[in-house]
């Protein structure tokens, strides 16, 4: 299982879907009309542009998410060796979590996670 098999898999995957699409294109008789361009069964037709400005609240959530996302990264190597190291690892991760949890408490206290 090397790079060669990965390339073979990629080519096979592209061929698998590509041939199916190609055959469908060749065999069927395609017509185009305006209805076909619409989003299929997605409610009423939109009026005005759908590119609206987002609420600033989303950004705050994204920022807090990013911090815990980075925290998650440190959980991967911890989870692999926690059994090997034992109690010490558990204590260390509890300290790590506690410090970040105070940040979460701060966000909660400041009302950053409240939807306005």
């Amino acid at each position, binding site marked *: 299982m090397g790079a060669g098999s990965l390339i073979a898999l990629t080519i096979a995957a592209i061929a698998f879907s590509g041939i199916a699409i190609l055959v469908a294109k060749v065999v069927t008789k395609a017509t185009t009309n305006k209805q076909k361009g619409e989003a299929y069964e997605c409610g009423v037709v939109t009026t005005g*542009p759908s590119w609206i400005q987002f609420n*600033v609240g989303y950004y*705050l959530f994204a920022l807090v998410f990013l911090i815990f*996302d980075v925290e998650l990264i440190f959980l991967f190597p911890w989870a692999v060796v926690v059994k090997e190291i034992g109690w010490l690892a558990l204590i*260390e991760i509890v300290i790590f979590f506690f410090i*970040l949890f105070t940040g979460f408490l701060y966000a909660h206290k400041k009302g950053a996670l409240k939807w306005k």
Partner: protein
Amino acid sequence: MIFEFYMTASQILFYVIAAFILGCGLLAMTTRKIFRSAIWLLFSLVGVSALYFWLQVEFIAAVQIVVYVGGIVVLIIFSVFLTQQSGTEMPKAPVKRTIASVFAVLFGFAFTYLLIYKNNFISGEGTFDAGISKIGNQMLTTGEQGFALPFEAVSILLLAAMIGCIVIAMKTSTNQAKGENEQAANTNKK
């Protein structure tokens, strides 16, 4: 003379990944809609993580996907949506600027190439082990090669980052709310 053209499968894979990264990066630069630019950046970063997988540093590849693709690009997309012009096409760049940026790119490439070419790379002995269990062991032990204290310090760094972004983002949002209130008051007066 017979020109021997020979590449191993691994090399082919590298060039495919590199072409993917560069192609997506180029599209991110040249597309005229800023939202599409963000999406092309996402694909480019996925390609970089593929390159890490190719180098067999799986943990770094996972970090690349979780933090950059899952975090930073989402943040960029949100900030694009915060602007009012996420859907409109940007004006075409003037020719002068295009020529200048091409020169800047060429200069950057030449400089980087020169640096890499001049550098004496020393091939190390033994095998390179960047396994996740080794990282975990070093991260959690306190001995000679342990990084337990930096690991805990990272949490304080993250805490500082979180408090900082809450303070800054909350400030702007309260300012905006104030502005909206004033606007409402003004319209009421009218």
